[in-house]
């Protein structure tokens, strides 16, 4: 928030509310926009983006952008992200103008299809180039939707992560925990959409409502950036005198948080508390204390705000980002100087940990230099996908006599592996 509104806004009024635009991309995105529009979502401009005319026609969004060329003959992308991307690139200028004048752009979409996976990365880039911060809220398809959609979704997610400031990602598969045997398909999709909408609403409130303890948008982005596994989120509400306790109980029992396990595993947690006027400091404190206990290892960012429309309800939104595997591959089109250093630094640090037997270091200096030079002096912003090779669990280091015993893990380090290997001391 401080980035744009304070520097560019003409008035420089103290608590400038950032201009937020919410883009729904693809059929799923447009449907979710409608769901958003139902509630008290004043102050944000909603824009529907799709290739399919019929889905746009039924949308209640204020602005509709139909990306249409002769290429498609009015048939949509046909589930092919390449087509989606081609069209979006063609209409890049249109998208860019649509983003102009906003501080924050939310991109809401369901990945896996042609429009969602193809258009949203391009849209995110357009928004960035027009000077807005980009936060994407996406769903990943159900496993039963097939391999191809999964793959496309993963690709789209990688691309989106590369361009957006933050990505909140909900794998639909997780909602199976929320539904029972008899839930209809329609309801299931409504539930997943509802969850995502709830988190959009939570973040939006966080950014726009008068904050007692404010969360800067950069904090939010920093939290979501560089977490390469999915983030999970939950939004719960409670009323009554014991609402602080109740809210935490509900939170821990929330199916999306795996009975609180997700909290324990997460590397960073964002907590936003919203209450009516009488939101007490003691309550904020109690909730934070409890949540803190559940996620001891996480970096916690918290914000509290007053929204009078909530009256006596207390609403808590939690976004927990799980630390993913450290990306080892250096993106082909990398980053500004600062973060390039970060990435290469990580490349070097990760080398000893890479479980190659250290007596013969895996990389010759020439190779390393080559990688470093490839990385420096390239374009701004991270783009491109990350290699998946790094995720393979290569157990080259046998643990010898401790192979079958219970591993000794201390702060995430397997102490059964020889110390000199973990510290990367070369014996030569």
């Amino acid at each position, binding site marked *: 928030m401080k980035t744009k509104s304070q520097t560019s806004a003409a008035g420089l009024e103290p608590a400038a509310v950032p201009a937020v635009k919410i883009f729904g991309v693809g059929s799923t995105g447009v449907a979710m926009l409608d769901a958003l529009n139902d509630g008290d979502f004043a102050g944000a401009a909603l824009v529907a983006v799709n290739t399919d005319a019929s889905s746009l026609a039924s949308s209640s969004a204020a602005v509709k952008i139909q990306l249409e060329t002769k290429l498609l003959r009015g048939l949509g992308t046909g589930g092919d992200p390449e087509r989606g991307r081609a069209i979006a690139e063609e209409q890049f200028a249109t998208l860019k103008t649509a983003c102009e004048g906003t501080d924050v752009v939310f991109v809401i979409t369901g990945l896996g299809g042609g429009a969602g996976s193809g258009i949203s990365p391009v849209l995110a880039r357009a928004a960035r180039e027009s000077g807005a911060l980009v936060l994407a809220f996406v769903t990943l398809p159900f496993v039963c939707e097939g391999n191809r959609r999964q793959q496309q979704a993963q690709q789209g997610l990688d691309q989106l992560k590369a361009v957006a400031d933050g990505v909140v990602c909900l794998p639909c598969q997780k909602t199976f925990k929320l539904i029972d045997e008899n839930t209809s398909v329609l309801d299931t999709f409504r539930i997943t959409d509802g969850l995502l909408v709830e988190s959009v609403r939570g973040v939006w409130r966080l950014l726009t409502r008068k904050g007692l303890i404010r969360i800067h948008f950069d904090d939010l982005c920093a939290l979501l950036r560089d977490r390469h596994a999915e983030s999970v989120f939950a939004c719960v509400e409670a009323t009554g005198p014991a609402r602080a306790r109740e809210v935490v109980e509900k939170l821990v029992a929330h199916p999306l948080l795996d009975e609180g396990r997700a909290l324990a595993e997460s590397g960073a947690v964002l907590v936003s508390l919203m209450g009516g006027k009488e939101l007490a400091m003691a309550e904020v404190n109690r909730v934070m204390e409890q949540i803190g206990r559940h996620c001891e290892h996480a970096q916690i960012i918290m914000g509290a705000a007053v929204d009078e429309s909530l009256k006596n309800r207390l609403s808590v939104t939690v976004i927990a980002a799980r630390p993913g595997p450290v990306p080892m591959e250096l993106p082909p089109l990398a980053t500004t100087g600062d973060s390039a250093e970060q990435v290469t630094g990580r490349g070097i640090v990760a080398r000893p940990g890479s479980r190659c037997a250290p007596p013969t270091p895996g990389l010759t200096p020439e190779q390393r230099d080559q990688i470093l030079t490839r990385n420096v002096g390239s374009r701004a912003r991270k783009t491109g996908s990350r290699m998946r090779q790094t995720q393979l669990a290569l157990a080259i280091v046998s*643990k*010898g006599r401790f192979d079958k015993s219970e591993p000794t893990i201390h702060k995430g380090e397997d*102490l059964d592996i*020889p110390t000199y290997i973990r510290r990367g001391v070369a*014996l030569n």
Partner: protein
Amino acid sequence: MFDDSSIIVGLEIGTSKVCAVVGERTADDSLNIIGLGQARSRGVRKGEIVDPAQAEEDVRNAIVEAEQMADVEIRNVYLGVTGAHIRGFNNRGVHPVVSADREITEDDVQDVVKNAKAINLPTENNVVHAIRQHFFVDGQAGITNPVGMLGSRLEVDVHVVHGITNRLQNAIRLVKGLQLEVDDIVFSGLASSLALLSSEQKELGALVIDVGGGTTDYVVYTDGVIRHTGVLAIGGDHVSNDLAYGLKVPLSRAEKLKLEHGSALVDKECKGQTITITNELGLPLKTINVEHLRRIMSLRLEEIFQLVAQDLEQAGLYDYLRAGVFLSGGCARVPQIAPLAEQVMQMPVSLGRTNSISGLKSALDQPEFISAIGLVKFGSFKSRKREGKPSLAQGIKGVLGRFLQRS
């Protein structure tokens, strides 16, 4: 044959060896070690039993050897336990003094200790020790015995050591299967500290690190009471395993190399030195660089001390250790280990020596027997306490015994 009640046996089922120490309480209430039995342990990893059948055999061998040496029959043992599942923490109990004259009685003390022991542990966990620290009377700190004082509110800090019941039971069941009674289970780290520290050292503040085969147990005393305990599931086994991996030799060979050429510090002389391993016919198999050997060892041992130091720093106890650090366990034999520990901990480190115990020189001087000797010492404290207040069962036994003698 000795009088049965004066014989105390400590049994430790360790990762590298099983060891039984027989002690005898003499008439002047000092402790004399009279027997020692040991056997190579094959059924234990990281301080916990993984192969009960093998472990049982090893325990039997050790007990038989100790029985022969001390010429006694062993019926009861104090059993040492360790393992990564064992944790320690401090807890406080509160008790209001309700009597009219506000004088604190023995009952009040019992109650407050009971309150302090009532801890919310997961159901699968069991308390191994709840050790009193200091009492508070109406907030006044540092009281060691409040009986007879006046006050309205009595509090006590206890240090609780707990572990997972099933894993503790494994060892107990094994010993019971050999027709031996387990008098009590004792955390090995605590036992080592009992054998090593004098009460003056406990008062000053001391850290005992027992680096054994499979685990490293450590105990911190300040102001004469136990303040902190911990277990790391790393030990000499890891050193051997690292060597086997790093030098590409079999584990048994790595073990031998560790004993013959190991050192905790990499000194200048070893640079370029090599050892040639020969097979049974005397033909050279492999040459090994001594510097590599020591570097691998040094890093592992250094890490152990670093982890302990980190834990103490977190507990905020680092500045209270005025008597320094005492090492015990098999790894305390590694040459230069004290200087290495000194480097890491930045305080005086010495190899521990058992105190106020007499007897077998061969047992008392070995660092690896310290915790088993400590078990005997624990037993002697226990039985001395019991004698002070004979329990009902013992009372009856005593009466019956006298009756039988007379008839």
